[in-house]
């Protein structure tokens, strides 16, 4: 039998899945073969994750069939899918932080006796990691590992179980360019060994570089499967959004004629502890002027979150100063910081930005409810609030059924636009934005980027923290790279490139003798070379 005549490793037909009134998948067809790397692309909310959750037995489809190697299957739980040889590497890792790597791998493996035999598994993991270029210490506890290493653990766990079909949900979203390259090599190696590798992505360059086949989803429907070699960025983008994208984001034109900008944010020798009490910021110095945008690059967990939290008053600085507009605001309350004209777009919009259970009007006034005209004495001014909310929704292109809808019901993009609208209202002096376009679709990303650009043009200083290098290059004048709580380099966006930033993000500063290995070990890109 030739390869093409064999039944596909995965064949899904007419999959429909509803959540209440939301149709996440509407009759989706999907097929992938052994030995190929298959990309599943689409905007947020296109139904990619739902489709893969059906394949991994987490959701049951309302209608439709799934066949593995030509045999129809009906998964009633994730266990059934695992038994059928399907392994999923989730975007939000499903590892138990307090357990070791080996214990996490042992979790959920059946028929291995009553006593835990960690030493055998540790040896097997060492061997597996060696063979596939995915090395990680099996005795380490998960919380001690970098994000890249945690991802390797996820993959190793799936391989250790003998999975033949490997599914990865946005695997490169959290990696440095170098780590991503290492992952790509590992995945290609697995496909060459005859595994079926499916990965979800919306980074088209990466899809074209890595995949053999590409299936595109749009609004819960599959709009086609194409040969990666026979397509290009532009046509994929058109399939994804169903229209031509605007021309590629161009870099900022430096705000001309402002050589001596007034300093808005000045951070000096800033130190702070992370959630686990370990140093997260280790002497950070930054300066951002009016009308200037400073990007902060770095691999997740190198102090970016803590930096944003200290600047906005949510985390204590253990040393150093935060000066905003000439006012020393070190360790002042978040309210004092906000009153000084600081807008904050936090990392997790539903945790620190919006209140999911409250309606849009309540969320819209969270920042300004204490002042006229939204409040009169002890009472909230209903009509003024309604007008204010409508204006905010309208001006920021928030698509919502009405202002009494709970904020948690909106899509991620609309939530983010509402949040930006609220924070940017009233001419902030400093905008602190953390992953402002994470998890939102292309259209909302355009709006969000436009809003941030407008603030810069209006003279606000911007501190933009992101892991998306393209976003940083497009929105910042300068980019500072954080590594292990220190600024290891600062570059002008106009002259920076991915390669240079990627090396800095891995802690390689380019000065002889100061080069350090990646976080906690060898980046996966290097592991294969030994």
């Amino acid at each position, binding site marked *: 039998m030739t390869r093409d005549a064999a039944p596909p490793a995965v064949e899904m037909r007419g999959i429909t899945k509803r959540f209440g009134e939301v149709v996440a998948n509407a009759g989706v067809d999907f097929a992938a073969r052994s030995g190929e790397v298959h990309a599943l692309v689409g905007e947020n909310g296109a139904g990619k994750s739902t489709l893969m959750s059906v394949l991994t037995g987490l959701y049951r489809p309302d209608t439709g069939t799934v066949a593995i190697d030509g045999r129809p299957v009906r998964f009633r739980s994730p266990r059934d899918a695992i038994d059928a040889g399907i392994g999923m590497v989730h975007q939000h890792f499903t590892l138990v*932080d307090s357990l070791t790597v080996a214990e996490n791998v042992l979790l959920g493996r059946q028929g291995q006796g009553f006593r835990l035999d960690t030493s055998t598994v540790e040896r097997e993991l060492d061997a597996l990691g060696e063979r596939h270029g995915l090395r990680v210490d099996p005795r380490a506890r998960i919380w001690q590992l970098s994000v890249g290493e945690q991802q390797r653990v996820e993959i190793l766990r799936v391989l250790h179980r003998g999975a033949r079909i490997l599914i990865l949900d946005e695997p490169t979203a959290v990696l440095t360019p170098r780590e991503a390259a290492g992952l790509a090599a590992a995945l290609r190696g697995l496909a060459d060994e005859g595994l079926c590798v499916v990965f979800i992505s919306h980074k088209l360059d990466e899809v074209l570089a890595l995949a053999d086949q590409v299936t595109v989803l749009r609004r819960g429907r599959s709009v086609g499967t194409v040969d990666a070699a026979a397509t290009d960025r532009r046509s994929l983008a058109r399939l994804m959004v169903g229209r031509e994208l605007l021309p590629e984001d161009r870099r900022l034109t430096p705000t001309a004629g402002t050589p001596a900008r007034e300093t808005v944010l000045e951070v000096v020798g800033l130190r702070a502890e992370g959630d686990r*009490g370990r140093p997260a910021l280790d002497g950070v110095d930054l300066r951002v002027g009016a009308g200037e945008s400073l990007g902060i690059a770095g691999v997740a967990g190198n102090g970016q979150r803590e930096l944003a939290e200290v600047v906005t008053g949510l985390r204590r600085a253990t040393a150093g100063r935060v000066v905003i507009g000439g006012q020393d605001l070190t360790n002042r309350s978040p309210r004092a910081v906000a009153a000084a004209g600081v807008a904050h777009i936090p990392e997790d919009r539903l945790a620190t930005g919006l209140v999911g259970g409250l309606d849009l009007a309540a969320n819209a006034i969270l920042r300004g409810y204490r002042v006229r005209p939204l409040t009169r004495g002890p009472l909230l001014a209903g009509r003024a609030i309604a007008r204010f909310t409508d204006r905010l929704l309208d001006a920021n292109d928030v698509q919502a059924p009405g202002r009494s809808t709970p904020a948690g019901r909106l899509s991620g993009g609309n939530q983010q636009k509402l949040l930006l609208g609220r924070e940017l209202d009233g001419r902030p002096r400093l905008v602190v934005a953390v992953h402002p376009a994470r998890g939102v679709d292309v259209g909302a990303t355009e709006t969000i980027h436009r809003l941030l650009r407008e603030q810069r043009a209006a003279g606000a200083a911007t501190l933009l923290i992101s892991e998306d290098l393209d976003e940083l290059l497009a929105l910042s004048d300068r980019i500072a790279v954080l590594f292990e709580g220190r600024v290891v380099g600062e570059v002008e966006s106009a002259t920076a490139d991915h390669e240079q930033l990627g090396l800095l993000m891995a802690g390689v500063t380019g000065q002889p003798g100061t080069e350090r290995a990646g976080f906690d070990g060898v980046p996966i890109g290097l592991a294969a070379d030994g």
Partner: protein
Amino acid sequence: MDDVTSLAFLTSVLAAAIPAATAILYACLGELLCERAGILNLGVEGMMLMGALGGFAVTVWTDRAWLGALAALGIGAAFGALHAVLTVPIGANQVVSGLALTLFGAGLSAFLGRDLVGRAAPDSFGRLHVPLLGDLPELGPILFRQNALVYLSYALVPALWFFVYRTRPGLHLRALGENPGTADALGLPVAALRVAYVVAGGALAGLGGAVISLATNPGWTENVTAGRGYIAVALVIFAGWNPLRAAFGAYLFGAVEAGQFRLQGAGVPISSFFLNMLPYLFTVAALVLASRPAARRRIGAPAALGQAYVREERA
């Protein structure tokens, strides 16, 4: 007046501390299993009361204390099952369900036990003198001249420690409370396991109650547990969800309780009201210590404690 500084006084305090601690120890181990699985059970007090009453009643009917202890296990398990059904498949608020069961257990035991108040126990767990070990100086009377339920708890503590940290089901248990979503994605039957551990925890709480009514103070009076169920919940936190540390905490508590009792007996000029407070003050102090940021980081509660898990729920 006894000499409260003598070795004999200390030995007698510690010998009394062990049985006093055992009731709490069982309840604490039960709560530990339950919380490791991610379910908070504040119904321990009610389950202990029902176990104490049920154990005593069955002993009165059958003249066999061990049948009473079995009954206490069963009644505790039944209450545990009630909490499990409310909190796991139905997903009710765990705090409210637990408190409701405590109130229910306290009321029901008081009502059903009206005629048993003051009745003498036809049988109880008396002291068993372990040959050889019981003759050791000091250690013998403290550790090895105790009742059968105490000896059972000696075995249970290391067994549970081994189970939690060294076995496959124990690994599953740890994952359940830390991250039920992960456990589910890996194919573990999250709901069934959670129910099983809540039932087991209830059974142990019931047995803890029976330690009081069948061994340390044979008999029944209303509210005989006097808040020990809540102290067990607090000790789980103090113990960092570790069975060995739970035993340590329970014995410390027992020593304070036995100590204040003996001090009163010895006629020490401190108000008995103040001495009665000591065990509870000790609990507060232990919680304060266990909640220091440094300690909290090291031990940490199961991350998903108190949260219902529903597979297809979307945020």
